[in-house]
């Protein structure tokens, strides 16, 4: 597929936004300015960007613990994102959710999730509603390689296939679940081997190549939109940083060589070479994009830092929806 220039630049732009958001969040965490756990997706930007570029505004995604990139790619804004990470009342979740529960239903982002695999059934449920409404909306759960070993993933994948729901399952296979390599936790090398067991097509794609991701996702999304049912995309990718926080080299559970090998394939820089080489853009424009988004990030950090923390009268709100009671009298 020959992507048009606009799409190429959009993909690039999204990846830059994700990278900068993650770098900024990581720096803040190192400076002890972010409470809680922080799972960064640096290195995996092409998956979120490539997949979400194929989605309409009213399509939906569900995410996992490593969810900032997905939200950025689906249209999330830096200010409420950064404010949420800083636990401010201007955050997407009013400071009640944090990184692991960041969400924006208005852009079709059904939430990060702190329980491995748990977002997948929710995405399938969203697809059930969408299929009934018949507006052709598609749901995309993102999840890691490790998550495919948990029951919720299995049940949800089979459910989507049995009910032929419009879902595109996207596995970001970064070869590790926390601090344990894939080969200790499963006897297969490719997650896509699981697709046939659900009766859905599966495809492996180079998760460091945003165009390849975009193309595979386009096909799977079209299929789902047409009503032909779910499919599975396995994107081979890598997280450059630690399971949480920033540290990348010198970790005991993976070699520096492995990290360096993958960093050579940085999804943003390789794509920049490609689009500059193809004449789709110039180095100057690329620098502008980075600078522009750097300013946006700085603005968001500033916004977040100056935002108020939630007050304790917020503690017990948002637990229940207060419905207007139905009018009919009880006998």
């Amino acid at each position, binding site marked *: 597929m020959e992507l048009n220039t606009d799409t190429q630049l959009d993909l690039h732009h999204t990846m830059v936004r994700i990278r900068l958001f993650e770098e900024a969040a990581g720096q803040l965490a190192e400076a002890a300015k972010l409470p809680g756990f922080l799972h960064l997706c640096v290195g995996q930007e092409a998956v979120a960007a490539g997949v979400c570029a194929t989605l309409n505004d009213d399509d939906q995604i569900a995410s996992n613990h490593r969810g900032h990139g997905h939200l950025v790619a689906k249209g999330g804004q830096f200010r409420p994102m950064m404010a949420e990470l800083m636990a401010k009342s201007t955050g997407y979740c009013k400071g009640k959710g944090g990184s692991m529960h960041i969400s924006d*239903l208005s852009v079709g982002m059904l939430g990060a999730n702190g329980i491995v695999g748990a977002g997948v059934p929710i995405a*399938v*449920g969203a697809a059930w*509603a969408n299929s009934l409404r018949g507006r052709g909306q598609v749901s995309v759960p993102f999840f890691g390689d490790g998550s495919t070993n948990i029951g919720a993933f299995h*049940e949800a994948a089979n459910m989507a296939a049995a009910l032929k729901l419009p879902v595109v399952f996207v596995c970001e296979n970064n070869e590790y679940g926390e601090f344990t390599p894939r080969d200790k936790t499963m006897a297969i090398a490719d997650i896509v081997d699981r697709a046939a067991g659900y009766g859905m097509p599966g495809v492996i794609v180079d998760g460091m190549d945003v165009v390849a991701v975009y193309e595979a996702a386009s096909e799977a999304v079209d299929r789902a939109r047409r009503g032909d049912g779910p499919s599975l995309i396995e994107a081979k990718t890598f997280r450059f940083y630690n399971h949480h926080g920033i540290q990348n080299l010198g970790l005991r559970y993976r070699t520096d060589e492995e990290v360096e090998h993958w960093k050579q394939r940085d999804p943003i820089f390789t794509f920049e070479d490609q689009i500059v080489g193809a004449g789709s853009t110039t180095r100057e424009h690329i620098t502008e994009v980075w600078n522009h988004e750097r300013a946006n990030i700085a603005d968001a950090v500033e916004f977040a830092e100056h935002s108020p923390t939630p007050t304790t009268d917020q503690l017990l709100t948002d637990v*229940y929806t207060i419905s207007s009671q139905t009018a009919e009298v009880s006998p």
Partner: protein
Amino acid sequence: MTDSPGRKLSYVQAFTEAVRLEMADDPTVICAGEDIGFFGGVFQSYAGLQTEFGVDRVVDTPISEQAIVGLGLGAAVNGMRPIVDIMFMDFMAVALDQIINQAAKIKYMFGGAATVPLTITTGGGAGMSAAAQHSQSLEALLCHIPGLKVVYPSNPLDMKGLMASCIRDDNPTVMVKHKRLLGMKAEVPEERYYTPLGEARVIRPGNDVTVVAWGKMTNDALAAADTLARDGIECEVIDPRTLQPFDIGTVVESVRRTNRAVVVHEAVRFGGLGGEIASQIQENAFDYLDAPVARLGAPFSPVPFSPDLEAAYIPSQERIVEEVRSVMARPLLGG
């Protein structure tokens, strides 16, 4: 309305009717669960609904309780009013993450942005020789989790009105049907009505002792109250109907009058909801109490298969009578 002569429905028919009326009224009401579609559910709770509303709105699912709850949750966040069925309450254990970590918390975690008009239905309770994994009353687990509502009707009239309210409630509700009450018949109005969630019903007035009981136990408590009345002991029997939110006000008001209380549930006594209720009673009516608040529940063992053992396991009318008598027998200190 309850006094007028009329059509009788069973507890399970009252359930089905509530679902049917809501489905007819509102296309966003949809159902999913194991065997609920073509077959109508193992308890026939969903009988006839697939025929009436089609396979898209009444869905037979795989045996995948986590994905069943997730199916409802995702659809609810997307504006539907799904009803999903977990055949036996015991099976909630395989889906508990979706219930307590997802459905119950998503609104709060999202800072209020999500609305979850989801109803989870299930069959609870013992008395069918169904043994340890098909007989539990696990409502205490659910009531401890902020974000959920829990409903446990004791009769057909309440069933219809409470189920309708569950469906229309904008929060995740769990509707527990007691398996031994499915065939219980009573007059039920044909029209739609909504019994408010969170309101107890004083099902029998009395001035000597307050008995709080739900599900099948309400009926046993009523029978026990009749026995006791013959000895001049007048029980006020309160059916909370909704266990979360719990209408403690009605209970406390009663205990302040009767000065004695017995809480009865079928669940295991230790750690059951009775502890919460008894504690709240003594917190709010301490100076009125002439005896400790008593609690009756199952002993500390799994539910046995043997009908003889099971009969000894489940709190019986006789044991309720005994418990009330012993509470009544307690002498007033210095009184």
